[in-house]
């Protein structure tokens, strides 16, 4: 018979072992799903691997997709650290894209050195506002932030649709819902001749900045203390309300930056195809990375690579793109279940008479 025993201290390499185990388990289930669709599962996994990591083209694509994922996920993680459940990165991302587009379309003649900072600032402000609204509702009226941030996602997407179907619609787009193409000053260029753009450098700096903020400043300390709960925060004389607003603004601002980077560097215009669910995947990334900035960088790259791999699978075996979501959900669920073993072990207990 097996009995549950609490570990004396947490399992040291447990997190990594569980993560790898979860990855393997999810790959196994995915193989079964492929087989269920009448495909050759091993061949499918090979294509997935090839598409994710197997070529320069794939790695470049993964790096490209990792940029918005990394920014969104950093934002999500900052809020989660305080036990504030910001599920709204998707909407904050959309608002960031809207903010950037607003500036790009308003001042098309400005040079990049002026226009790009304007776009980033506006993206941060709008993304931040979109996250501060639920924060205020939570603090003032105790409105559950999980639901309010989520509902604001749906509203943001409709707002984006409204804009590209209406006031910002490109008159020359033959009726397609998209804004006019950005002027040269509003576009973040590629690094050298690669598809990867300077947003990569920006997000690395943003990540280091956030890390330093958490590590070395008073705010970072307060944030950690508040993660233990609002009551602990009050004992530590932390102005909890102000901190929540600040953290949510930061959280939304980072997602907003992701929206800005994607619109400016990848699409060069605002259009609904921008919304591919980075905001939701960011939640998976943040949790897999145990909310640590450096881990987030790795996890974003990994899940971005997975997305590229699934695209490859989609092309070669006509597998629906939703395959990626299944894998993400599976990995996260398995990791959650596995975390049990960080604190507990199962022991064989001899029954009487054995």
């Amino acid at each position, binding site marked *: 018979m097996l009995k549950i025993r609490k570990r004396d201290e947490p399992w040291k390499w447990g997190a990594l072992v569980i993560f790898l185990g979860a990855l393997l388990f999810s790959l196994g289930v995915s193989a079964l799903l492929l087989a269920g669709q009448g495909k050759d599962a091993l061949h499918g996994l090979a294509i997935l691997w090839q598409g994710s990591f197997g070529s320069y083209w794939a790695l470049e694509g993964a790096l490209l997709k990792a940029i918005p994922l990394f920014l969104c996920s950093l934002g999500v993680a900052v809020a989660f650290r305080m036990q504030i459940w910001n599920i709204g990165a998707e909407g904050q991302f959309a608002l960031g894209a809207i903010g950037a587009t607003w500036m790009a379309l308003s001042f098309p003649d400005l040079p990049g050195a002026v226009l790009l900072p304007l776009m980033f600032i506006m993206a941060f402000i709008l993304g931040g506002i979109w996250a501060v609204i639920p924060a205020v509702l939570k603090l003032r009226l105790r409105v559950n932030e999980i639901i309010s941030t989520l509902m*604001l996602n749906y509203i943001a997407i409709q707002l984006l649709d409204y804009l590209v179907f209406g006031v910002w619609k490109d008159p020359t787009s033959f009726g397609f819902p998209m804004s006019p193409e950005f002027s040269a000053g509003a576009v973040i260029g590629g690094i050298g001749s690669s598809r990867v753009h300077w947003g990569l450098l920006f997000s690395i700096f943003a990540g280091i900045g956030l890390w330093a903020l958490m590590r070395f400043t008073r705010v970072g300390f307060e944030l950690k203390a508040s993660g233990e709960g609002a009551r602990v925060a009050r004992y530590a004389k932390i102005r909890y309300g102000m901190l929540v607003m600040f953290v949510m603004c930061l959280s939304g601002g980072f997602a907003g930056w992701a929206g800005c980077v994607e619109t400016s560097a990848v699409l060069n215009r605002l259009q609904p195809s921008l919304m591919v669910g980075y905001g939701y995947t960011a939640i*998976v990334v943040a949790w897999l990375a145990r909310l640590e900035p450096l881990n987030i960088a790795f996890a974003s790259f990994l899940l971005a690579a997975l997305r590229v791999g699934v695209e490859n699978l989609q092309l070669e075996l006509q*597998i629906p793109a939703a395959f990626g*979501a299944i894998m993400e*959900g599976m990995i996260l669920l398995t990791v959650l279940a596995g975390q049990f073993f960080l604190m507990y072990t199962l022991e064989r207990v001899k029954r009487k008479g054995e």
Partner: protein
Amino acid sequence: MTEFLIPLFAATVQSGTPILYATLGEMMTEKGGVLNLGVEGIMSVAALAAFFVSMSTGSPWLGFLAGGVAGTLMATLHGFVCITCLGNQVVSGLALTILGVGLTNFLGVPYVGQSAPGFTPFDFPLLSSIPYLGDIFFKHDMLVYISFVVPFVFWFFFRRTSLGLHVTATGEMPAAAAAVGLKPVALRYFAVMAGGFLIGLGGAYLSLAYTHLWTNGLSGGRGWIAVALVIFAFWRPGRAVAGAYLFGGVMAFQLRLQAMGTHLPSSLLLMLPYALTVLVLILSAARGRRTDAPAALGTNIEPEG
């Protein structure tokens, strides 16, 4: 005016029905102390399961049941992660939604645009001839009529049966429940699975009665609305009915306005249900009745040893 209002109210009841099932399901789960944010994913999977079984067996009733069973299975997964493995309830629910919506979009591809035998409206004997009320409430399909009974059963279960009281105890204070000899872990599994069954019925309604056609994204945020409505309803079935029909009303109204070709852009109309959800939460919070939530909601039961 009645030519506009009566059909609108009838449509309200119809579009409120899946939300009602899902809200009661989530309420059942939360009564046992478990927060399940996977409602959206569970509804999607259940809708597909119901559609598939109804299409392949030709029996919408089997389809309806399959929706419930699929809901139970999905919810059990959440139960396993949170109750047995002590995983974070919020994150597990989110993961379940990601997984469920993904699975649905993945497995549903071959069925897009296909139809399955579903439930059709009929006039309920006698009751449908009541003026006005008959037109609003008693000219629907069988699943709507069943949904009229479920809140009463729900109420009876929690107020008059010992199992119901035990589930409530687990949601309020699992330690105390264990002390008097109840099995909180088993009771939580029961609440999660029974809740999943009801949520699954809500999903089944979408593919078997709301439309008879399979399309992607059938649940369209209804699962999340259900989660919000549980808060709005203060964990009481009567108010869940009111909330579900309020949302059904807004959805029906919004569709009607679009069909009438108003000058309002459709995206602004589509925002309505989501904006209303936030508003409803603000209103219910303003009344300050948070103490109605099960006290142990969201906290896991630590094993001994």
